[in-house]
């Protein structure tokens, strides 16, 4: 515990001694369920534990569907949301963010399928995305553009990433969209069934989601800075093979779009 940073934690949170952190554990390698069948593991889980150690608080990591996490933060069910959230201006109207990573969106599909390389290439195909993600919003925006032409896009929105991958395997969708580290990991784990196609776009920061104005933004930012300074941050990213997305300094509400 770093006492100078732990002192910044508001008294109400310090009194409980625990931070409940929500993540949608279907997004390997950032958050997924470990071999014991119920613990959330991954880059976000390791980073949450490290932040907890700096602040002197216990971390209770819970699994929740992606589109229920921000409403859960607003209603006080969770203290933090660390589920590969892209920090966007739209989301900043509801919660605060402390940026900690950088990722874009990648396309991936069956090795035998059409290699869709960009959003424009979606026209005339079926794309699977997870509910509540920026990829869902991007795909729907592209569908509006395509549908005016003669080549409609079918956007299939599923509850979680596992359902997206199943839709891809069964041919329901020609292509899936996910954050680049996640897409790369799925392709690696699939042993040749899936392949990445095209180039990643829309590189944007990940942010730790915090309820608005509850005093936790500054301590969390200080904790992340500390982890970057003492090398713990890079060690965690190296462990999961995603060091390419490292950022130099954490920002509060650093949305670029």
């Amino acid at each position: 515990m770093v006492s100078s940073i732990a002192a910044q934690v508001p008294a109400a949170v310090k009194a409980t001694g625990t931070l409940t952190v929500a993540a949608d554990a279907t997004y390997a390698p950032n958050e997924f369920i470990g071999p014991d069948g119920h613990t959330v593991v991954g880059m976000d889980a390791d980073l949450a534990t490290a932040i907890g150690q700096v602040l002197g608080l216990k971390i209770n990591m819970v699994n929740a569907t992606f589109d229920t996490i921000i409403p859960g933060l607003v209603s006080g069910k969770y203290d933090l949301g660390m589920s590969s959230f892209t920090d966007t201006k739209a989301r900043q109207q509801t919660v605060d963010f402390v940026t900690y990573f950088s990722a874009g969106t990648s396309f991936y599909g069956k090795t035998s399928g059409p290699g869709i390389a960009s959003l424009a290439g979606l026209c005339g195909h079926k794309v699977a995305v997870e509910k509540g993600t920026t990829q869902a919003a991007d795909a729907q925006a592209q569908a509006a553009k395509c549908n005016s032409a003669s080549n409609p896009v079918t956007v299939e929105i599923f509850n979680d990433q596992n359902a997206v991958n199943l839709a891809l395997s069964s041919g329901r969708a020609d292509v899936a969209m996910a954050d680049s580290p996640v897409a790369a990991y799925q392709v690696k784990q699939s042993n040749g069934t899936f392949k990445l196609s095209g180039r990643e776009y829309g590189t944007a920061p990940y942010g730790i989601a915090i309820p608005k104005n509850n005093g936790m933004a500054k301590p969390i930012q200080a904790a992340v800075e500390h982890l970057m300074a003492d090398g713990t941050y890079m060690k965690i990213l190296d462990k999961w093979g995603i060091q390419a997305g490292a950022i130099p300094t954490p920002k509060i509400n650093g949305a670029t779009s």
Partner: protein
Amino acid sequence: MTTPQTTETAGLTAPPEEIKAVPVRHPGRWLAAAVVLVLAAMFVHTLLTNPRFGWDVIGSYLFSRRVLAGLAITILLTVVAMAMGILLGVILAVMRLSANPLLSGTSWVYIWFFRGTPVLVQLLFWFNLAFLYPRISLGLPFGPSFLHANANSLITPLAAAILGLGLNEGAYMAEIVRAGILSVDHGQVDAAQALGMSRTLTMRRIVLPQAMRVIIPPTGNETISMLKTSSLASVITVTELLYSVQLIYAVNFKTIPLLIVASIWYLILTSVLTAGQYYIERHYARGAARELPPTPWQRIRRILFTVHAPLPAPPAQHRDES
């Protein structure tokens, strides 16, 4: 010396007192009613004063295009899945009661399998059928095939939902119809056979119409249940009511108000179905009782519009004259 006549006359000149009849007091009922009223008032108060309900959001989305489109799909799923379920149920029930062991065995296996797996799993299975059979073709068994189709084009999400819900419902309806058929007295079948009716005619004209009285209440229950079970189709991306509402709050984060919008519509539809079931039950109850009890509308009419004749005047008090 008092004579009996004097006492009689004396008794007859005074008019009999009116009986003061006081209704039985039920203090417990009044107390319970007061408690219920207070709780109801508290509930209505919190509904109106808690800002988190978001009544303005509810009002703006209750009749929005997306919600109404989702409602239409929910109604479509309920109607088609129940129609499929009832038709399948009758066929399976009759097969189950057949003398042919192959028919009754097949029916048993179908009911065992479709009641034995969760509806959600069945929906996911039909949706992802292409994982097992990418192409579906029509042809000779173990021989050449004539028509081919891509499984994903043939089975759209809506088709997968109808298949999953309808086939599952067929298994449950089969047991309900079988219960109805068993409830008809065997004397009816004996009498029909004595009249020389065939087994099919007996089933169609004698047994099934009488079985309806026992079949309708659980079927109404199943229909109302199907209305809600159709929300499972949200997992396979069918844009029914719940999924439409989920897509809206995934973007604007107003989870509770939008779930209330969906709940209001489910409640309205359930009320309509409940009223419908009441009238269908009355239709099939003809002949079972001398006179059917009045419907709610008939009761309202009776209270509001019946004119009572004035009560007759009390009898004259002059019995001692004669």
